[in-house]
């Protein structure tokens, strides 16, 4: 197996783990954690395609990843703030119970 394949396989596993965590856990923070894992799997793919791709000289992959990490950080901050706010309202962070915004 070439290093690219190894990387892709690893990121696939990481994405699957993240998805499983996000779907299976009921703790909001852990769901957020799962989503982070899925994002990082995508970031890993960017790095792998840049490192072993046809033109490694331009730093496009790295730039993409840096931007994605920054956006993710902001998103995580908003997500955690929401979690705190939900906890204040209903003394629980179980995702199944936070259904007030349903149609």
């Amino acid at each position, binding site marked *: 197996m070439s290093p690219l394949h190894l990387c892709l396989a690893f990121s696939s596993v990481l994405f699957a783990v993240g998805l499983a965590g996000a779907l299976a856990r009921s703790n909001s923070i852990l769901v957020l954690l799962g989503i982070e894992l899925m994002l990082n799997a995508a970031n890993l793919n960017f790095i792998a395609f840049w490192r072993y791709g046809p033109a490694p000289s331009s730093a496009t992959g790295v730039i993409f990843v840096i931007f994605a990490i920054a956006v993710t950080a902001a998103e995580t901050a908003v997500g955690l703030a929401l979690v705190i706010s939900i906890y204040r309202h209903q003394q629980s962070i179980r*995702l199944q119970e936070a*259904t007030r*915004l*349903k*149609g």
Partner: protein
Amino acid sequence: MKLPVEYLWLIPALPLLAAALGSVTPRRGRRLAAGAAIAAMLGALVLSCLALRAALADPSAHLTCNFPWFDLGNGAVQLGWLLDPLNAFMCVMVSAVGLLIFIFSLGYMEADEDFTRFFCHLSLFAASMLCVVVANSLLLLFIGWELVGLASYLLIGFWFHKPAAAAAAKKAFITTRIGDIGFLLGLVWLYDSTGSLLLYDGGNGVLETHVLGDLASQMLAGGLAASTAIGLLIFCGAAGKSGQFPLHVWLPDAMEGPTPVSALIHAATMVAAGVFLIARIFPLISADQELAAAPLHALTVVAAIGAITALLGAAIAVAQYDLKRILAFSTISQLGYMMLALGVGSWVAAIFHLLTHAFFKALLFLAAGSAIHAVHHEQDIRQLGGMRGPMRTTYATFAVGMMALAGVPFIFSGFWSKEAILHAASQWNVSHLPLYAGLAGVVLTAFYMTRLLCEVFWGAPRSPASSHARESPAVMTIPLIALAVGAIAVGFLGTPAWPWLQSRLTGREVPAHSLLEGGSLMALSIVLVATGLGAGWALYGRRPRAAASAPDPLATAAPRAFAFLGARMKLDELYAATFGRLNTFGAALADILDRWVWGGAVELLARLGEFTGFVNRGVDEGGLNKGFDTVSERIRGAGRAYSRAQTGEAHGYLRTLAIAFVVLALLVLLGGGR
């Protein structure tokens, strides 16, 4: 001290103020209302005397004070005051006679509960007449003229709870209104041709030379001058107000008002207005005299109407039994004399007779009022009689008035003014018929006045009321004495030997003549007066009526003629049968037209509108509303369906996403990346 023309408006303003005060005074404020009215009349009299002095300082001048009332198009409607001897004499006469009548009313109306209202209306009456007199604009004159009509309506119908009084007030108002339509048309025409309604306006007034020349030179169809037509239209108004044939029918009925009102109407205010108007616009109405070719001169019509009225009024008066109605018909006859004088071209004689007539007719009415008051409002002369004994002052003053009206020579004023009229009529070069009518009227006047005097005051009392008659209080007899003095003295202002009034009115020196100027005519009229008096005395004085039911000597001599005259020549019936019928027919026609033609058309339109509304409603509810309702119901359903998908379960959303992703990935992989 003289009254400048700028302050002339004060003369009508004072009584108007009193009327305004009286209208807000409560019913119990009797002394306030009467005091204000009498004080205002006294003020007006003083101001009128000052105005007369100012006017006599230069009798040929026409002092004016004009001012714009409001702007209309390019010009302004002008009003103004005029001061000349004609106005000033009228003002003095109206306010002096008015004042005496007001004082008399204090006694006459004492028992009436609407005393306050009475004085309010009297003041309004006097104010409107004074407004007519001092106006320098025909428009202002017309305003005053209509106010006179209104006030007369209010006063004739003062006892409006009596149906006869209410009907008489209506009759007076409507009859004079018929004449006023002519007057108004004349004014509109005049304004259209000259652009002004001012009488004197520094050369541009309608009574000044070059405007009159224009009017007389405008020819209408048939060779009539515009001034003839305008003059005749204005004369219609004067004929209505002054009770000229054929519009005289309201005047006898106006006797339903209280007697002071009759005195005011017949002497100073209402009927004098028509004669005054024609004398005022005499330059206009006589402008066509120069046109020898004209088929008709306005003044000829005036003279003819005057002569007819003079004779007709005197003839009807012979056969009446109501004390006040006899006096009313004598007024009609005397107004006919004045119009006759105007028609034959001597407006000075007309005004002279107007002034003397004002005094002796006011005197006669007030004396009659005093007698009526004493016998508890019995007016039928057959029921009176024998009142000479208890009512000495009333009898003496009534006799003075009666002799003045009959024209007893040399002492009484009526003689001089009537002579002036007859003299003018004898010099008219168109026809001598007015003179003959006037001479016949002289006999009749002397006759019916003798009859009235004998029936009321001589003989024995013929009813319980007249046997208990008592002399009226001083507040009523003093005005009588003052008027009796006037009825004698005013005549000496204008005798042929000393024509002071004539020269002041015309503004030129009128040469004095010997008293026996035109001696044959004077002798003839003295003989006629003597004939009338003698006949009256022979029929009624020598053998006084024995009982109230005894027949009239004339009625036995000529029953049919007497009954015809007694029914006022059936003129009222004639009007009822012609104009009244015509009016009823027209009203019925208008009713049918309204009810069926116009009513039907309106009904049809309404039904059409109703039908359109019905259709609109159907379209709206069935079509548009239903369509909109369906569409919005659908949109609402779709919204509900979508909102059901929003469960709020974050896991559910994520799961959907993941499954969709897997499906997408499978599609991509199996489709070979295409």
